[in-house]
């Protein structure tokens, strides 16, 4: 079947089977940041943004992307690098397998929540599982990253 959608800012026309999941389709198209972790909709590793909202690509038919804007970490390299530095500084990157889904959800959280508390951050990211860490380093890195972004925004506004 035909599928027309935006992938990381590029409008594409593709052929896809009716039962192909978005996760498999995106990986076929070279978006290897999108990982398959649990396949039971629990781990958040396959998180991508669909029209700005985080969704589980393992649980969504590729055909449901028709006319939508899909963004994977390949489309947010600069932003991911910026946050990744905070993650690395806190020793929170660990094996790295969950990081792309985790980072995509942090970007979604940044768009949705204004100045979130630690509690709100933890609640928003509850659907991103990491089996290496206890989430402490990750939480530290997010808090520092958000503080950095806030300061940067304030400085830009003052200029």
């Amino acid at each position, binding site marked *: 079947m035909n599928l027309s959608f935006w992938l990381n800012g590029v409008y594409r026309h593709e052929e896809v089977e009716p039962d192909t999941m978005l996760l498999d389709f995106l990986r076929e198209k070279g978006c290897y940041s999108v990982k398959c972790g649990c396949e039971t909709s629990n781990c958040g590793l396959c998180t991508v943004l669909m029209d700005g909202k*985080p969704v589980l690509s393992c649980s969504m038919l590729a055909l449901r992307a028709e006319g939508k804007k899909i963004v994977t970490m390949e489309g947010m390299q600069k932003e991911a690098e910026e946050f990744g530095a905070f993650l690395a500084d806190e020793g929170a990157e660990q094996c790295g397998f969950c990081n792309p889904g985790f980072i995509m959800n942090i970007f979604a959280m940044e768009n949705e929540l204004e100045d979130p508390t630690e509690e709100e951050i933890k609640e928003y990211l509850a659907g991103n599982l990491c089996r290496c860490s206890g989430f402490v380093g990750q939480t530290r890195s997010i808090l520092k990253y958000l503080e950095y972004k806030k300061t940067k925004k304030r400085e830009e506004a003052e200029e």
Partner: protein
Amino acid sequence: MLKIKSYVKVNSIAEAYELNQKKSACVLGGMIWLKMGNRNVSTAIDLSGLGLDTVQELEDEYVIGCMTTLHDLEINKSLDAFTQGALRESLRHIVGVQFRNCATVGGSIFGRYGFSDVLTLFLAMDTWVDLYQAGRVPLAEFVKMKKDRDILQAVIVKKTPLKTVYLSQRNTETDFPVLTCAVSLIGEQPRTVIGARPGCAMVVEDKEDFLYGFTEMSKKEKTEAARRFSEYAAANVPVGSNMRGSGEYRRLLTEVLTRRAWETLGGIEK
């Protein structure tokens, strides 16, 4: 594994209904549960092009389109105020935001899943389902109906004055609940719903009128009524065992959650 032969994004509910009369066809909700099973679907029917993904607030009711996602419900300020935060409480523990951006209210209600937090809370309100063929049916009746090939278009919540409290017990955050409990006063009418028994959520009838006149009771009377009704609920709600908890554990939870919920609704501070 889920196999789909053909996929149709329908242009009308009538078209969806017609396609759905074939037993091997399937209406897609959020697909979270559907994709976990082994199933061969001849025609996957997608309602996502029909604009049924919004919450409409009318003078006397909320009309929630069947394709509204659980996260959209969770962040709806009007529904949050109407339910005094109970709706958000019932949704926020369901896996993660990404999950709730996929799962739909129609899928959750139509599936009548035993583990459903959503069904438990909606049963505690003056809720109706709008079915394409059968029309509007009270949700409490709908959960008892045999599953058929009708199509749920919307969930209606009447704006009958409501006080409600939602509680659930989980073995671990984001897991299915071991037990869910919603209590409410719809107008002056008390209602208690227990779900994840692990069977489908059910309304617990107060046959002995323990909660009759609850709003007019003193704090001491409310405490006593909550205690007596929770014991009654524990004795009368059928519960069973599964990998998340034994029937005995669920029976104890029924008593504790029911009592806590009624005490909270009655404004009794511990």
